[in-house]
């Protein structure tokens, strides 16, 4: 079976084509801004302009024609309204024109599900960390439950906002990682765990204040920022592991690129006797292949969408979806 998936919840537009076993194509284009920040309208225009050429490229790279596709999947939410609508419209148009079934996919779930396409991981706890999202999720009682999530901003946005405030440019994550490697001295910053959840705004404010005071080296602040924020992420992930009794951990989302975060999660997993896995980066970041693969699993499990079900869901919750396909 072959599925085509369109991702476009935020700034990245992606088209992926997959089978049960393999990624045939996974094409991206990211709407770039100089300074970062969130631009729903501009990003949506970007997606609308590029969708056709990305579809074409993906089909060429996969060496299939649109007639060979068994199901069209699209990212239904959560995300930015204007972007979601462009993607849903494109998916509907394809489905109608070529008379193909269509399924709407939850973006957060797709990030974790796609790991099964490239590894033998079966039932993991997922730490999903990107610009806008930060969640710890795992399958429990037929749904992906949220064991912890950010109450304010995503960890990626926190890194990006800090970088912007201190003049490092966008995206901030990789730049902070580089600086942090040279940091030696830990500067105390507010720890981000709030009950079961996370919160990064206090940490961000304090880190900026420390920088502006002129008393600290930027390398030390970057180091302390990462250590503090990532320790909180790992702690919440460990709790989810302990409570569910699962023994696999996966790291997904754009921030999964960070080596220090990988190292910390891997140490935690090892100490608990759990396996740790990070997919290749093109399957970690926002991408079409994850949407295609999740859509394929859903479709194979008999999930059918009428056109009226394809309405976009800006606030699509992870635990809204009944997972009947595993």
């Amino acid at each position, binding site marked *: 079976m072959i599925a085509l998936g369109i991702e476009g919840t935020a700034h990245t537009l992606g088209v992926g084509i997959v089978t049960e076993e393999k990624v045939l194509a996974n094409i991206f284009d990211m709407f770039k801004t100089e300074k970062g920040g969130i631009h729903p309208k501009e990003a949506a225009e970007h997606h609308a302009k590029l969708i056709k050429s990305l579809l074409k490229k993906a089909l060429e790279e996969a060496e299939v024609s649109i007639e060979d596709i068994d199901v069209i999947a699209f990212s239904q939410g959560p995300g930015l309204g204007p972007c979601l609508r462009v993607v849903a419209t494109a998916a509907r148009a394809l489905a109608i024109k070529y008379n193909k079934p269509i399924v709407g996919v939850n973006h957060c779930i797709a990030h974790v599900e796609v790991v099964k396409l490239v590894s033998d991981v079966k039932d993991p706890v997922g730490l999903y960390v990107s610009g806008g999202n930060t969640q710890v999720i795992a399958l*429990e*009682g037929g749904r992906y*439950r949220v*064991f912890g999530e950010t109450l304010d901003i995503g960890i990626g946005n926190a890194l990006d906002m800090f970088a912007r405030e201190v003049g490092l440019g966008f995206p901030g994550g990789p730049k902070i990682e580089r600086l942090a490697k040279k940091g030696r001295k*830990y500067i*105390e910053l507010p*720890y981000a765990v709030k*009950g*079961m*959840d996370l919160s990064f705004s206090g940490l961000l404010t304090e880190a900026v204040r420390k920088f502006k005071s002129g008393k600290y080296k930027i390398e030390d602040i970057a180091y302390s920022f990462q*250590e*503090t924020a990532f*320790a909180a992420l*790992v*702690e919440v992930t*460990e*709790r*989810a*592991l*302990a*409570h*569910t009794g699962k023994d696999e951990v996966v790291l997904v989302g754009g921030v999964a690129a960070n080596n220090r975060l990988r*190292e*910390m*999660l891997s*140490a*935690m997993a090892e*100490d608990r006797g759990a396996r740790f896995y990070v997919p290749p980066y093109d399957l970690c970041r926002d991408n079409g292949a994850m949407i295609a693969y999740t859509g394929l699993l859903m479709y194979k499990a008999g999930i059918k969408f009428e056109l009226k079900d394809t309405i976009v869901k800006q*606030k699509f*919750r992870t*635990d809204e979806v009944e997972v009947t396909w595993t």
Partner: protein
Amino acid sequence: MELIKQGAEAKIYLARFEELYFPFNDEKVIVKYRLPKRYRIKEIDEKLRKERTVREARLLHRAKEFGVNVPHIYEVDLKDMKIVMEFIEGERLKELLEKVPMEERLELCREIGRQLGRLHNAGIIHGDLTTSNMILREGKIYFIDFGLGEFDDTLETQGVDLHLLKRAMESTHYKWFEKGFEAVLEGYAEVRGKEKEKELREKIDEIESRGRYVKERKWMKG
């Protein structure tokens, strides 16, 4: 010492008083030991373990002062990050509530409400209210596990505390949880007054209507 539970952050041992301190006392005690974590740097690790050990001990201490039944603390050791406390040997409400007749059940629920009312009056949020964390001993209901507790006296956090208890009861005691939770609120009102109870009922409704931020977490602990 016998390991009875290994949670995410602590190991819990059951021991005898005489093993740890002086002889001729075979009372049982609980030793809660917060483990170091290799994944985080030493500065953060020590700070967190210390803060949490101190906070848990303070919460238990303050709760007791306000007449809430909680384990007595024997020792707080900030070198090993451990708390030694009284072992509450009794029956967990999770199982007990399912066994007794309705009338007795509802009286127990009212008593949960009274205990919780006192706890909130003390400016304490439990953070993890489930009937697994309540033990009946000699006719008294004890609250244990203050690991997620906080000093906080805002309506919001008290509402969340009650909401989480409601959710926990709904999943563990689904056959009668509605009546049961009503009884909890009755007991709560006896201690904190009708006015407060009304405010909290409204708060719980509001929390539930937020949807996305309704935390349905308690199923995790079973």
